[in-house]
């Protein structure tokens, strides 16, 4: 038994989404009142009901959300929270206390992973060990919200309003990571990966040791860029290119190949809008006009590190 499982946090998140939807529905001034209210309401139901919801129903709800987003029925109210003067005055009053709740979240992450995940009474575990990081951050967020309300002496409704404002600034991009995870699953069900691995293996002169290494690292990066997820690319490209050529044909070290191969996949993650939770959602969170600005800032980093990975792997994999 787990006392704090993700299900608890899903319900809290669902409740918050429901409040967001209800407040939009009651706001006659909202530019896209009904579209936005339905969008956030549907997401609330997905969070609340979760696995009790038949997959087909959830699928059609997702379809409805996509249609609302694509027809521009989901929008936020522009503007910053509160007047600049009020914020400055409040910053002057609260000084460094303002950082306490913000720092509580990483602090809880540390405490959660190192301590709380080990607390148990017999079979009763305090936290779900499979999701320690996510649970710890969620717990941290709730504790931080409570401390934040205490320090600022604000009413809880302020937190809901401000959270709603930030959420609407992110907008429909919020569900993009979940959509992409679903697309990745459909790709692998349809067998897209092996086709790519086969194409690369046949098109390149992999009998040359350096080409085998380069094909594997590039394959990891490119397939990760298509899938948005290095974990999805790893089995496909490693079984298709890495093991047959780098390890079996040229007798490379499998540990070196796999470790650096995965990191080559991460280089791909830096360079693709498909990795929405790392690249697109942050762009919206940081008010960037160009939602690809984070990807653009990361392309030079990704390319340099990919070259470094190919070099490191080539120098080490056949030697150790």
């Amino acid at each position, binding site marked *: 038994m787990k006392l704090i499982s993700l299900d608890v946090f899903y319900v809290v998140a669902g409740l918050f989404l429901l409040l967001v939807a209800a407040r939009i529905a009651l706001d006659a001034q909202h530019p896209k009142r009904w579209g936005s209210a339905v969008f956030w309401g549907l997401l609330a139901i997905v969070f609340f009901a979760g696995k009790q919801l038949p997959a087909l129903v959830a699928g059609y709800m997702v*379809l409805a959300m996509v249609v609302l987003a694509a027809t521009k029925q989901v929008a936020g109210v522009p503007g910053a929270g509160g007047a600049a003067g009020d914020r400055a005055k409040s910053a002057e009053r609260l000084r460094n206390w303002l950082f306490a709740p913000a720092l509580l979240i990483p602090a809880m992450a540390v405490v959660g992973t190192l301590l709380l995940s080990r607390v148990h009474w017999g079979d009763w575990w305090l936290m779900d060990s499979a999701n320690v990081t996510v649970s710890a951050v969620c717990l941290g967020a709730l504790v931080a919200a409570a401390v934040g309300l205490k320090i600022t002496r604000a009413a809880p409704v302020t937190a809901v309003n401000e959270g709603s404002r930030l959420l609407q600034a992110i907008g429909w991009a919020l569900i993009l990571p979940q959509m992409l995870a*679903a697309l990745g699953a459909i790709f692998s069900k349809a067998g897209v990966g092996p086709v790519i691995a086969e194409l690369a293996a046949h098109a390149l002169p992999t009998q040359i040791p350096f080409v085998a290494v380069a094909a594997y690292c590039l394959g990891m990066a490119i397939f990760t860029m298509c899938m948005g997820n290095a974990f999805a690319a790893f089995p496909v490209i490693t079984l298709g290119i890495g093991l047959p050529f780098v390890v079996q044909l040229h007798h490379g070290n499998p540990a070196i190949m796999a470790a650096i191969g995965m990191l080559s996949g991460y280089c791909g993650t830096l360079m693709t809008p498909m990795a929405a939770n790392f690249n697109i959602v942050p762009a919206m969170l940081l008010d960037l006009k160009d939602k690809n600005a984070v990807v653009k800032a990361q392309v030079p980093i990704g390319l340099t590190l990919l070259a470094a990975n190919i070099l*490191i792997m080539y120098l080490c994999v056949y030697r150790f």
Partner: protein
Amino acid sequence: MIKLIGILVVAVGFALRFNTLLVVMAAGIITGMVAGMSFNEIMELFGKYFVENRYVTLTVLLIVPVVGLLERHGLRERAEALISKAKAATAGRVLLIYTAIRQISIAFGVNIGGHPQMVRPLVAPMAEAAARQQFKRAVLPAAASSGELPDKLAEEVRANAAAAENVGNFFGEDTVFAVGAVLLIQGVLKGQGQDVGLWALSLWGIPTALAAFCVMVWRTQRLDRRIREQAHLAKTEEPQ
């Protein structure tokens, strides 16, 4: 070959700037149809994986209320006030230090970062405040300009803050204490009869982790140089 049509749909859809959600859904539907699934089967898959992957969105949902609350009460303003006392602070240095902290902590298995909880409320405002100061100091003595950081440059600083988070997160993970990725690697290789030790996998993540830090040194120095250049431009453009 026909199975790759989904990737083509994504590439074309992104290039033509259609709504991203629509592009993703269309790619899934077309790929599924090509593979012989019915429309309802595809909707079922979307529903199943959308629900299963709720945890990706969960942290954002729970963090935005507290971040919004603190921002309304002047968190960003306070971060700026604090950074303006540190005379040696530059946007590049703030981001480089953050990357280092992130790489080291996650190498020990502790994930203290994240875009909603660290970058938006703390790292990005601090880097931006440092940039604003660098800019102001470079511009003010000469010109009558306000010394305001141009919006474009501010956005560049924020985009680089997101990059510092991602690089620190991705290229520390596979070292010292193996987590997630290393276990996946071990599992996949084991399935193919290749037994590799966790320590070997962790060890071979270190060269790339060092390379990643060096790349961030280069990128953050470049960012500081860009701020200096822009300040210089602003100074020479002002007529007075």
